[in-house]
């Protein structure tokens, strides 16, 4: 199992394709950062137009913490697509190149093989998020400095003191890792059903896009399925950036507004992972390799 896992990692990080995602993220984040560095004040006043009509905000609104939030908000919709690129290729890619039959004629257990491969794609996913964190958080902190974090939600705004922010990002990134490994699990499962990489990659992306649409649209019929869609729960990382208020409407530093929401979402995502990977293992164990 350990050998298999090492070999899978070795393969992932020897492939040029792996680095496409890293490059894409670097470019995306770099673009957002450049844009905000140059025209950030404009952007801030645009987003806060409604707010600015009755309030005056003073301070370094456009600091690294805020920039990271914007980057994550924009990026975490697209990272799943980059993860699909690798995860949905894990089995189908091997089937496509024909290496799968060679691998499976080796004395390795199929279930262990599946688990090792999934774990390797989890490692890849986490590395990708570490990369995002390095760039979106740490680099933004360097470029834009740190300050209190003021974010606008759809019905209220939250001001978080600068000393209260970092642990929230740690939590948010951990949650994002969970959400992204769910995507990896889905891509991984779908990669069993094809002998080319494109099919599962497109299928994974489609599932994500359709589910995201369902999660976004506020239509009663769709609202019934919403709580069960993993895409609904993928954005729960934002809950780390909401404070609880006491009866005097004072926000309590270090608090979370809806910790139970985070727990529920994490649980639902975990269930998805277990189901997807479990199904992958069961299906692959019985699968005839004819590629």
């Amino acid at each position: 199992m350990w050998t298999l896992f090492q070999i899978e990692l070795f393969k992932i990080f020897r492939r040029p394709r792996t680095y496409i995602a890293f490059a894409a993220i670097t470019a995306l984040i770099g673009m957002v950062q450049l844009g905000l560095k140059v025209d950030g004040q404009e952007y801030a006043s645009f987003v806060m137009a409604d707010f600015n009509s009755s309030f005056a905000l003073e301070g370094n609104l456009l600091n690294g913490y805020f920039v990271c939030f914007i980057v994550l908000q924009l990026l975490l919709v697209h990272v799943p697509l980059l993860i699909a690129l690798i995860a949905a290729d894990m089995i189908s890619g091997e089937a496509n190149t024909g290496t799968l039959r060679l691998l499976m004629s080796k004395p390795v257990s199929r279930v262990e093989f599946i688990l090792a491969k999934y774990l390797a794609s989890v490692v890849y996913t986490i590395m990708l998020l570490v990369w995002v964190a390095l760039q979106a958080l740490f680099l933004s902190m360097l470029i834009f400095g740190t300050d209190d974090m003021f974010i606008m939600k759809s019905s209220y705004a939250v001001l978080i003191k600068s000393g209260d922010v970092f642990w929230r990002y740690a939590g948010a990134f951990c949650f994002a890792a969970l959400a992204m490994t769910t995507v990896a699990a889905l891509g991984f499962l779908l990669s069993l059903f094809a002998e080319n990489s494109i099919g599962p990659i497109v299928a994974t992306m489609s599932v994500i896009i359709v589910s995201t649409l369902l999660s976004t649209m506020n239509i009663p019929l769709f609202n019934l399925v919403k709580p069960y869609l993993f895409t609904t729960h993928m954005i729960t990382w934002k809950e780390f950036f909401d404070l609880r208020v006491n009866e005097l409407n004072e926000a309590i530093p270090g608090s979370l507004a809806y910790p139970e929401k985070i727990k529920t979402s994490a649980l639902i995502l975990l269930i998805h992972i277990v189901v997807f990977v479990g199904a992958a293992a069961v299906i692959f164990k019985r699968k005839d390799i004819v590629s």
Partner: protein
Amino acid sequence: MQSLIQVSSLTKKYGSFTAVNELSFSVQKGDVYGFLGQNGAGKSTTIRMLMTLIEPTAGDIRIFDLPLSTHRKEILRQTGAVIEKPEVYPYLSAYDNLRLFARLSGVKLSRAQYMQQLEQVGLASRAHDKVKTFSQGMKQRLGIGIALVHNPQLIVLDEPTNGLDPQGIADIRNLLLWLSREQKKTILISSHLLSEIEQVATRVLIIDKGKKLVEGSAEELFDPSKTIVELQTNDTAAARERLIASNWAAHLRESTGNNIKLQMNRNDIPALNRDLVQWQIDVLSLQQQHSLEDYFLQVTAGKKHVDTFSN
């Protein structure tokens, strides 16, 4: 002699389609076992079942006297395989590919040993080049290197010469002979080309539409007494009548158009010629066909009388 592979009543069905039908055969230790059949005859399916890539619908496989279904790992550890085109990771070097698959087979060799293995298949000088720069022949050799790297007792090669040039085919043949004679390996080799099998195999199995047509030692199959002779005369109908009425009837195999085929001992050809002359039938051509090849083509093309070949 100990049976290294013992296959009984092996069947694989895909829905209503039967790819492999009640196939039984055995491979003895030290055999170079030729597995012949046309494309789609069920060779690959059978080999994939031997390599646990495909689950049999029914039947039983024992390798090294162990049931494959329960001793998969032990068996595969002692088995090396090249299944169809030996595809490896194009973005890795030959060395890395070899090392990777060796570790999957449960062995960890020294650098020198890996290089020696690459040397054996003539790739030492390209050890650290990425495989995507390799020709088909080089990939094939690397595939065989991978199949041999963990020093297995049994080597399974599925169509190993597909897509190779004549030199490549000759190289593989020499390698197989060396493995068999010097290294005392047991080899199962499949092909749709008889010529490939003929020169190396000690035993031959021919299958068609998932069914066994014939199995036997190469010596038996090359028996001069079972030579196919093709006859062309000025009067095919008369010749056929005469032959049916004579002692040759038992040897008559087929008559299509102007051709009549007989199976007989090569040494009896002059006697047949004499009889035809006696019957005043002009012989246009009396040709000894290249033994197994035509027979193979014939039987696998769905012809009859195969039972006489079985043993």
